[in-house]
Every structure is written in C-alpha cells, then in structure tokens.
C-alpha cells in the first residue's frame, strides 16, 4: 500500500515538473495521470500492484472535493453578478453538454458496430459477432 502510494506521488511529481518546465496550461496531476496510464499500458504487471490502493483512494473521491468546495461557498458571497443569468446558463449548458456528448458518442458507436457487422458478414459468413 505504501509503495503504491509512493508510486502515485512519483507520477504526480513528474507531472508537476513537466507542467512547470514546459509552462503547460494543464495541472500537474492530469499530466501525471496520462504518464501513469502510458506506463501501465507499457508495463501491465504494475497494474496489479497499485490497483488496490488506487481503488481505495477513488472510492472516496467525493470526500476530497469538500475542502475546496467549502472555500468556494465562502468566497461566493463576495462575487457580484446576475445570479439568474448565471443559474440559467449553467443549468441549460450542463444539460446540453451531457446530452450532446452522450448522443454523439452513442451514434458513432452504433455506426461503428454496424460497419463491423457489415464487414464480418461480407468477409467471413457465420462468424458470431462479439459486439
């Protein structure tokens, strides 16, 4: 568990370092996540070793947003703005984003499945499709 946590921290450090050195507009942990992903793909045995700790950390992911969230609520009172405009824009835009992302992803997935079935049907008759 300790070694796995150390692994996560090493990748976070790498990410933060790269972000800083290249002046990327992306947070270090996101870069660290991409680096760890490619490492896991290149060297799968590492996955089994760090998976338990990683899952435990992610199970309580919502807890980790509480301190920042409280700070934002504390700061929100000082922000002046058209709150009705803001609430409407956030709500409608969030629903639209959810709907468009899901609809487009599913549409392309369906299209891809149809193409595959078509190819399977033409090339090797009778093969069961695994989709």
């Amino acid at each position, binding site marked *: 568990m300790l070694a796995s*946590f150390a692994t*996560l*921290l090493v*990748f*976070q450090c790498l*990410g933060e370092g790269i972000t800083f050195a290249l002046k990327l*507009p*992306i*947070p270090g*942990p*996101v870069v660290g*996540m*991409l680096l*760890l*992903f490619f490492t*896991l793909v290149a060297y799968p045995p590492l*996955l089994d070793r*760090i*998976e338990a700790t*990683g*899952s435990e*950390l*992610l199970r309580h*992911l*919502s*807890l*980790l*947003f*509480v*301190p*920042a969230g*409280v*700070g*934002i*609520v*504390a*700061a929100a009172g000082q922000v002046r*703005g*058209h709150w009705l*405009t*803001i609430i*409407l*824009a*956030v*709500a*409608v*835009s*969030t*629903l*639209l*984003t*959810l*709907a*468009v*992302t*899901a609809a487009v*992803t*599913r549409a*392309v*997935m369906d299209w891809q499945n149809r193409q595959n079935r078509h190819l399977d049907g033409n090339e090797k008759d009778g093969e069961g499709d695994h989709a």
Partner: protein
Amino acid sequence: MRELPQFGLIWVYLAASPLLGLTLTLCAYVVAYWIYSRCKFSPLANPVAIAIALVSTVLLLSGMPYSEYFAGAQFVHFLLGPATVALAIPLARQLPRLRKSFLPLACGLLAGSTTAIVSAVVLTILLGGSPQLAFSIGPKSATTPIAMGVAEKLGGLPALTAVLVISTGIFGAVAARFLFNRMRIDSPEVRGFALGVTSHGIGTARAFQVNQEMGAFAGLGMGLNGVLTAFLAPWLIPVFVGLLAR
C-alpha cells in the same frame, strides 16, 4: 456557569490546531454519506453538496474563518493530486474497450467540449450577461485549476469561475441519471464518459459510486476535456463573445 467558559477554552484550543478542520471534514462527509445511503444513493442526495453545506453551516455558526478550517482540511485536499493520478488505473483496466471505442469517444469529446464552451457563452450573452461573465463561465466544464487559468487569461473572474465549475459538477452529477434514462442511454461507458466530460471530478466521483466501469470512463472524460478545454476555450470564447456582444 462554570462550564461554559471552560468549553469555550477547549474550543479555542482545538480550533488553533489543524485537528479540528480535519475532524470536521471527515465527520461532515460521514454524515453526508449516511444520508446518501439512506436515500438509496439517489443522485439528488449528492454527498459532496451535503458535506459542503454541513461544513459551511458549522463555519458560519461558530465564526471560524476559512483559513483556520483549511489548515486542517488541507490534508484531505492534498489527496486530490494522487487521486487524479490514480484515475489512470481503472482506465488501464478498460484498455481493450478503450481501443475499441476510440473513435466514438474522440467524436463525443470534441462535440461535448465545444457544446460546453459555446452554449455557456451564447446563453450568458443572450440572457444579458457581460463579456466578463462570459469569459468566467465559458470553461466551466473543465476541472477547477484549468478553468480558473483560462478565465484569468481571458480577463474573467477566476473566483466566480471556481463557483461555476463546482455548480456544474454538482448539477451534472444530480441531473445525469434522469437525462440519460429519458434519452434511453444504457451503456455505462457512454454514461460515464459524458458525465466526466461535463462534470469533471465531481461527476467522476458520482460515477465511481455507481460502478467501476462508469468511473473509469468518467475519469477519462474529465482528463481529456480538461486538456481540450485548455486549448479550445482561449480562442473559442472570444470569437463568440465578439460575435454576440457589442
């Protein structure tokens, strides 16, 4: 008569150490999670929102300043970094499905990221908001540090952006199930990915509470949309603000 000042003394003593902020955060979350489980894990009882409300109430009633609270809560906050890195783990587990769905996910990401930015900016301007508000709201679907960075670069208000990012996260996590059921989208892959693209970490946290597969794809959506927003938003937002505002 004698007990009150003593209790006050104990409070002052505890408040000066980071212990109190940490204890408060964990207790509030335990209570919030208990409520969430009593509500059969309904998205309406979002544990992040409940825990934030509980802690905020305690701070308001006790008069404890946020900086004092954060001295303890920062130990929890710190774990966000390694947890973000850890999102690579469930993702690597889903590698075979990820390979198969590469094209659909790429198309969904591009469509979703653009929709998030453009719809927020257009709605804000049409509803009478200022360009500054549009700059602050445009990157709201990206994870907080990215969104704040973009808003700052464009001349928005980073503090307002932080509020909007958290609101987008909570609202998306609450609304997603109802919307997806209505659209008849069943695949946990698609549901998770859309939730991560739209509602970043808070959406991802909700997805992990549904199941690991949904969580893995939500984490992917969050990471990719964060990166894409960092590149798209700085030029997409001014274009639409320039078109609509005068």
